[in-house]
């Protein structure tokens, strides 16, 4: 590697890092300015004390967990089945799972509102529970590209067909195969999909806002206009959560390379 290449490499890298870190620095600095003239954690204190923060954050965490559960239930058996029995269908299924990247969330939720109102055959928006369910389903759709890819990649690292056959010939049925053989081997993949889902759901704005659910994303947006410093503290918190989740993914994937997963 020549000196010139090294200098250019470092220059590009440093530029990029500044690009990433200066705004985060700005964000943090601003969040400390709630008390005039001195840095303080007042904004954080106020945020944590705000019952709406607690309520919306709890709501979003619960939604994220529900979404992860639905996602696992839908994605793991499907990815398994496709790899095992319908490998030719994989490109099509993958295409469908990538659609949420193509169809903006705002379009999907628009469709929900029109399709599942109280006068429709499936009046999900007719009740709070139904609307929450619809939101969870919507989140599952948003997370689908990531969840499916993660699980599918996880399945690629094991020889699904042969392991299944090995289990079958040893007398195992489908449920045993999924639970004892397949799932334990894709735990790292499922976890990384789950953390990504968590990160997506916690900050999601569009769906929650348009379905009028008291989630963290809309709260953040609202408070962003109505309060001076708290939104910055909240953003730092949101960033820390996202960072935490994705950091955990890295950890899990690195850990799983070193040792097999156990359940």
């Amino acid at each position: 590697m020549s000196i010139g290449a090294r200098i250019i490499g470092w220059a590009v890298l440093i530029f990029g890092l500044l690009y990433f870190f200066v705004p985060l620095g700005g964000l943090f600095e601003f969040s400390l300015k709630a008390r005039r003239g001195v840095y303080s954690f007042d904004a954080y204190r106020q945020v944590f004390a705000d019952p709406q923060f607690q309520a919306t954050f709890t709501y979003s965490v619960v939604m994220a967990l529900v979404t992860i559960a639905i996602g696992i239930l839908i994605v793991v058996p499907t990815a398994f089945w496709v790899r095992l029995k319908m490998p030719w269908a994989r490109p099509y299924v993958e295409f469908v799972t990538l659609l949420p990247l193509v169809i903006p969330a705002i379009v999907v939720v628009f469709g929900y509102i029109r399709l599942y109102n109280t006068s429709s055959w499936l009046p999900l928006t007719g009740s709070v529970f139904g609307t929450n369910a619809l939101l969870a389903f919507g989140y599952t759709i948003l997370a689908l590209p990531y969840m499916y890819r993660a699980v599918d990649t996880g399945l690629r690292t094991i020889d699904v067909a042969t392991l299944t056959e090995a289990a079958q010939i040893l007398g195992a049925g489908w449920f045993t195969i999924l639970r004892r053989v397949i799932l334990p081997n894709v735990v790292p993949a499922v976890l990384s999909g789950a953390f990504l889902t968590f990160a997506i759901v916690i900050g999601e704005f569009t769906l929650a806002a348009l379905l009028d659910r008291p989630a963290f994303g809309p709260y953040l947006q609202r408070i962003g206009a109505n309060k001076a410093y708290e939104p910055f503290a909240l953003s730092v918190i949101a960033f820390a959560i996202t960072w935490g989740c994705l950091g955990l993914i890295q950890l899990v994937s690195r850990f799983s390379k070193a040792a097999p997963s156990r359940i």
Partner: protein
Amino acid sequence: MTNSSPATQLHLPLTWLGLAPFAIFVTLFLLMPTMHIVIGAFQTRDGSFTLQNIIDLNSGTIPSSYWISIKISAASAALGSLIGFGMAVAVVFGAVPRWVRSPLMTFSGVASNFAGVPLAFAFLATFGPVGLVTVLLRQNFGIVLQRDLGFNILSFWGLTVTYLFFQIPLMILIITPALEGLRREWREAAQVLGASTLQYWRMVALPILFPSLLGTFALLFANAFGAVATAIALTGSSLNIVPIQLFAQIRGDVLGNPNLGYAMAFGMIVVTAVANVVYIWLRIRAERWLK
């Protein structure tokens, strides 16, 4: 389960059954809602077929909002691709130490998901009127961003610069595997045949990467085009870009014509779909080589 019976006609449907939960779920919560919108784009309020909604897209502020959206998306995708590519190359090919790589990839994973409301605040806090950088420049160098450099966070460049925050890391994430797909032997084969580094990049590496680069550009474009939350958080919904207008339309804005809303949504789908089809097509081409 399926292999017990010699009757093969039973075989197919049972196999298909395994796909049913997924198929039903996706149909209900992705395909049908989308189709509803797409069909609605070609319907009048009472349900008869019309092209009027599509024609109406060409009225009022809609064309300009599409245009500005496309411009912002294209600019942030182009710059994001360029800078991200540079960083990925520096890291993959060892211009910078190896240990940089892992943290950078982790960080890119985080940052590429750091869109939305918090991102808007980060940039407001940095380049906004009382932002960190704005104030630093004004106090220490006497430079007023808006007056002297014409920079304003609420401008085309402001949004572009903000979007770059997630575009660059996304580029790094997606292009790194492609760069790693460049096999060492290709470079060595070129070298041993007498090629210089420049010749190698021009004749071998870039042609191989080209589909990936173009494809990633398309993906970045779609990514920016659909971003709502960041823009809303920055401007509080008075900015005329497509997602915001659609957002307002759905919330019940002055447009008051759901079918026109359908048409706008349809337009978004068309734009992002075109970008993604380009991406997928090019990715398939790229994978042919990188097998």
